C-alpha cells in the first residue's frame, strides 16, 4: 500500500489487489497513512492455486479492477 500511496503522490492514480485476509489491516493502514486507498479484494488462499484457477480469479476481479482505474 505504501507504493500506491507514493504513486498517488506522484500524480498516478493507483489501486491494488489483495486477498480478503487484508481487509481490516488495509483499512487501518490506510487510515494511519492518511490515504484514501483503492483496494480490490479477491478470495483467499492464493499460494496453492493452479494457473487456470489464477486466471479465473483474475477474470472475476477484472471489472472491479477497472472500476478502481476509471471513473
Amino acid at each position, binding site marked *: 500500500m505504501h507504493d500506491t500511496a507514493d504513486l498517488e503522490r506522484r500524480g498516478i492514480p493507483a489501486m491494488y489487489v489483495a486477498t480478503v485476509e487484508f481487509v481490516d489491516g488495509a483499512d*487501518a493502514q490506510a*487510515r*494511519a*497513512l*492518511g490515504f484514501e486507498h483503492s483496494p480490490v479484494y479477491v478470495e483467499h488462499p492464493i499460494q496453492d492455486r493452479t494457473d487456470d484457477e489464477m486466471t479465473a480469479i483474475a477474470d472475476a476481479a477484472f471489472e472491479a479492477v477497472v472500476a478502481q482505474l476509471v471513473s
Partner: protein
Amino acid sequence: MSEIERPPLPNGIVAFVKRDCPTCEVVAPVLRDLAKRVALTVYTQDDVAFPEGLEPVDDRALEMSWHWGIDAVPTLIRVEAGEERERALGWNREEWQQLTGVEALGDGLPDWRPGCGSLSLAPDRVDELRARFGGGVLRSRRIELADLEDEYEAMFERGWSDGLPLVPPTEQRVLAMLGGTKRAPDEIVAIVPPDLVPCTVEKVAVNAVMAGCKPEYLPVVLAAVTAVCTDEFNMHGLLATTMPTGPVLVVNGPIRRAIGMNSGMNVMGQGNRANSSIGRALQLVVRNVGGGRPGEVDRATHGNPGKLGFCFAEDEEGSPWQPLSVDLGAEPGRSTVTLFPGEGPRNIMDQISRDPESLARSFAACLRTLHHPKLLIAFDCLLAVGPEHARVFEQAGWSKAQLIGRLHELLQVPGSEFVRGAGGIAEGMPEQLKDVALPKFKPGGLLVVHCGSGAGLFSMMIGGWVAGDLGSKPVIQEIES
C-alpha cells in the same frame, strides 16, 4: 501515553489480569501462591471475582491499565519506592521467579505461555480511554500511526513538513510545551491566514514542538503569531506575493538571554536552537494551521532560505544605541518581538571607512540598490549594523537617529535617475516624477538593529516587501510569559 498524572502503583509485586484469558486462568494458582510469600496486588480488568481468593482491585474502568501501559495480560510488575523496576508479559517461569525473587513457581505449568491482549488496548475501548485519561487537556484531533510506520516519514507524507524533519508532536511533548506559557491551551491566539483559522495556544504548541522549540521559547512564538496575524502586517499578502519575502523576527529584551538566543557571531546563520526553531515554528503555524503553503497560496518566484525561519536577537548590550524595540515605541527593558516583512539578508562590506560620513555613504550606496536602484519609496529596509561598523559611528558620537537621518539625505534621488527609461533601463518610477527628487525609503521606512560578532567590518540589509497600507507594516508585539 501521558505519564504526567498517573496514579501510583503500590509497592511490591503487581499483577494485571482478566478472567477472559486462558493464561491468566492458568496462572491464578501461581498468584495465590505468590500472595502468601510477597506483597502482591492484583488488578482485574473484567471480573472482580477473578482471581478467586485474592481480593483483586477493580480496574474494570481500565484506569490503572491505561496509565501503566499494560499491553497484555497477565503482566507482572515489581514496584519499589513507587517506581516500576521490572515487568514481565505473559507467563514465563524464569522471568517470574527472577522478578519476584521467589523460587519454584508454577509447579506443573509449562515453562511459558503467551498472554492475551489487554482490555485497555481493545479497539472499541481505546478512544474512550484516551479521551478520559490521556492528554485530557488537549483538544486537537489525534493521528494514529500504524505499527510499522516511521513517524518521521508519516509527518512528511501528511504534508506537515517544510522540507526538513519534524519532531513528532506526541501528547507528552505538546503538554510539556504548554508548560512554557501560563495561557490556557484553548485560548485563541490569532486568526491565521490564508484560511483564516482561529488558532489556539495548543495548535501553536504542537507546531512549536515540531519545529524543535523548547517550552521556554513558546511565549516568543505566541507573540510572533499574534503579530503576523494583524491587519497591519498583512500576512496573507506577504504569503501570496511573488516577491522573495517572509516574516523576519527580531527579539529584544531580557528574554533573549533567558532562552539563550544568539545576537552575535553568525547571528543570522545556523547553529542556535532558539533562533532557528522560533522562526521555524511561526512558519509551520502559517503552513499547517493557516494553510499557507508554497505552490498553493504562497507564490514566491524564488523565495529565500529565511522563509524556513528567520529569527534573531539584537545585541543590545554591545550597542551604542537604544534597541529597535524602543525605536518602535516599546518601554525599555521589555521583551518584544518585532516582525519585519523581509527578504534574505544582503551583505554591506566596508573594510576601509573609519569616519562616519564615509561609512554612511557606503551604506547609502548599497541601500540604493535594494530590489532595484530605480525603485524608491515602496519598500522598507531593516539595516543590521555590525559591531565594528557601529563603533565607527559611536566614536564619532552619531546617534541612531543621526545615522538614519544622514542616510535619508544621501538617498534622495533625482527623478532624472529613477524614471522609467533613465539609464537605458525600462524599469523605474513613473515618468511624470522626472522633475522630482524622491527618497529611497519613506520616512520611518529604515529600521536599524545592532547584531553580529565583534570581528568583521560588515553590516547586513534586509529588504522589505511592499510597505504601507497596500503591503505590510512592521509590527512589534510584547512577549508575555
